[in-house]
């Protein structure tokens, strides 16, 4: 087993990894930027080190500093979480060269999956179906135009150097191709330092389905079934679930095997996710592989009963997987809602603030992976994901019903969040029936604004009750004189009891 792990991340995922270490009796070092000195992951950790100023480039993205701190604190491993350096082959190599264990895949697997056109070619060789596409480093504008005719419109222009939807352009007509290529090259250069791009067929009305895999260093690879993540805004997921309401057992088995083949083709070890787009005719196409733990991993944990972070640590320590494919089964249905500090009524722009009051729902089948507690400041420096609400129930209908209850029991005061939007999403008929595609948010929820509610007046009454209970005048300080509200009487008079 590993002795001590440096957690090279922040927020809810740092808390998640920290808890796994604590349960396993492994030491853990939490790192933080100056903006996170009082953050939850720091408060919960036994050992903490400040790694620099708030901007990620000067703290959480400083690979060398992280490796130094790991060595100085006697760690024998680094867990990168997701985001930041999780998919940086250079960082993984740096960790390995320092004689430390990287809790993630081998450097070579990250590299092979990191360059998207090469990953596509590797997948084709391994017999994994990829969407029709075209990539060539020396291709001229005419080559791209010819290839585009063959692939057919609409198609996507994508950055070769990385995923996450960065630089992605959808092209509907040949006339728009040159501009799309130019702007994708620009975005790609900015984000990955490489202007290389490639073309890929655009699957309209597709479903984003991904398969969780686990591999050990003894040659065992298993899949832990699929997750559906079609509910997205700006190519970022909002709601995920498993099993997918769209899957058939036949396709489920096929993509499970395809994911295992994909992992084997790059010599994958540890937890990873193979993403597919599935069209209306149930054809599946390889999109990319995320060579790390996913944000939405808890839904898989709820349904399979496998603790993925614990498995990651065991595999990193060189242990064989404690189960075979046959012993992994699914039970019930799990849904995750991502709670973001953002304003869905204003184009999902990020918001900031201090968490003044937090009431988290609880009860059977409810799990919360949160990175914040009361008093925490949500700053402008990092990703707006603040917590994940995950529910499990026997079937999809019951799980969504439970999610509605849980969302209504979630109170977070002090900043604008997407809770209201999530409440409406899980009630939305098209989502309820399992018919939502990746276009759902952009098409059905366009221009969303909170509806007027009978609760609007009730909230004003509550505000006034609170202000008068505090004996404050509306301007804030001076106690109100002769306030006639009965619960201020100090003679023991009680109302309604």
């Amino acid at each position: 087993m590993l002795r001590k792990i440096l957690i090279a991340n922040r927020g809810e995922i740092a808390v998640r990894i920290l808890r796994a270490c604590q349960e396993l009796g492994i030491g853990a070092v939490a790192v933080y930027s100056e903006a996170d000195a009082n953050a939850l992951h720091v408060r919960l950790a036994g050992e903490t080190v400040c790694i620099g100023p708030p901007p990620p480039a000067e703290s959480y993205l400083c690979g060398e500093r992280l490796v130094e701190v790991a060595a100085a604190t006697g760690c024998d491993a680094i867990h990168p979480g997701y985001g930041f350096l999780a998919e940086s082959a250079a960082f993984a190599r740096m960790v390995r060269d320092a004689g430390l264990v990287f809790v993630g895949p081998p450097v070579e697997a990250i590299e092979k999956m990191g360059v998207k056109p090469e990953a596509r070619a590797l997948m084709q060789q391994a017999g994994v179906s990829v969407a029709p596409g075209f990539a060539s480093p020396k291709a001229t504008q005419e080559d791209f135009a010819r290839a585009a005719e063959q692939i057919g419109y609409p198609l996507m222009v994508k950055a070769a150097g990385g995923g996450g939807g960065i630089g992605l352009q959808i092209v509907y007509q040949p006339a728009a191709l040159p501009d799309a290529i130019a702007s994708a090259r620009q975005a790609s250069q900015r984000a990955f330092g490489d202007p290389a791009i490639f073309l890929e067929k655009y699957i309209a009305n597709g479903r984003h389905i991904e398969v969780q895999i686990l591999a050990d260093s003894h040659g065992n690879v298993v899949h832990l079934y699929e997750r559906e993540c079609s509910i997205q805004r700006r190519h970022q997921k909002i709601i995920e679930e498993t099993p997918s309401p769209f899957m058939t057992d036949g396709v489920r088995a096929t993509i499970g095997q395809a994911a295992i083949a994909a992992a084997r083709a790059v010599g994958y070890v540890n937890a990873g996710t193979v993403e597919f787009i599935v069209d209306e005719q149930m054809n599946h196409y390889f999109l990319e592989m995320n060579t790390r733990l996913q944000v939405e991993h808890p839904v898989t944990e709820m349904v399979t009963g496998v603790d993925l972070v614990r498995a990651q640590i065991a595999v990193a320590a060189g242990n064989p997987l404690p189960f075979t494919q046959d012993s992994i089964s699914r039970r019930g249905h799990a849904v995750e809602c991502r709670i973001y500090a953002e304003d869905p009524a204003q184009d999902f722009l990020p918001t900031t603030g201090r968490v003044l009051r937090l009431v988290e729902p609880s009860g059977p089948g409810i799990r919360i992976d949160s990175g914040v507690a009361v008093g925490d400041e949500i700053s402008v420096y990092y990703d707006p994901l603040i917590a994940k609400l995950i529910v499990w129930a026997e079937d999809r209908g019951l799980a969504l019903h439970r999610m509605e209850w849980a969302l209504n029991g979630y109170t977070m005061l002090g900043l604008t969040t997407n809770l209201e939007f999530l409440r409406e999403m899980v009630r939305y008929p098209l989502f309820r029936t399992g018919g939502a595609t990746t276009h759902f948010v952009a098409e059905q929820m366009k221009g969303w604004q909170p509806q007027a509610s009978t609760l609007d007046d009730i909230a004003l009454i509550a505000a006034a009750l609170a202000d008068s209970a505090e004996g404050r005048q509306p301007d804030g300080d001076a106690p109100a004189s002769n306030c006639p509200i009965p619960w201020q009487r100090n003679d023991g008079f009680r109302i309604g009891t």
Partner: protein
Amino acid sequence: VEFCYRVGETEQLVRLEAQVDGTIIAQVGGRVYRVQLQSAQGGQFHFMVDGRRYEAFRARPMQGSQGVSRCYVAVVGSTTPGEPPESRHYEFIPVVPPQGTGQPIEAGLLRLGARTNPAVARSRARGSLDAHMPGQVVQVMVNEGEQVSAGQPLLVLEAMKIVTRVVAPVAGRISRVLVQEGDTVERGQRLVDVEPVA
């Protein structure tokens, strides 16, 4: 007692009056409700309004916090068996209630309703620009006194990986630039004043 709150661009007056039977008559805009408070503790309230049960939370930033004083309210609505309760979050700005409405409530007589806040109206006419999200000012592209056309980018804001350009709402002259490159701004903070061309 009266309390007044700014909600978006309108102001709402709330009047509370205790009754001899222990209930409270609450008036919001022109609407009248009978409220029965059941418990009030540490910013958490349980009460009945016209026979329906509600739970509310109210929080305010600590005194001395920067910016406008705000209060945050969450309400969870009454439960119909089998159906999840409704839940909503609100953000109000407490303001001083207008004078001259201090008489006792006679149900249904007072009709204040929503009034446009004059400060907001003024700022619209002058074409000043507020930050629509919190973030950092990455670039300021204009100087005071400069002429700009409608839609011209004035500055660039960045927050949490999202970069947006703030553009001139109208053609005019930049009368004031209130921020510098590198400043961290709050949502709603004034950035630039644009005087429209006459």
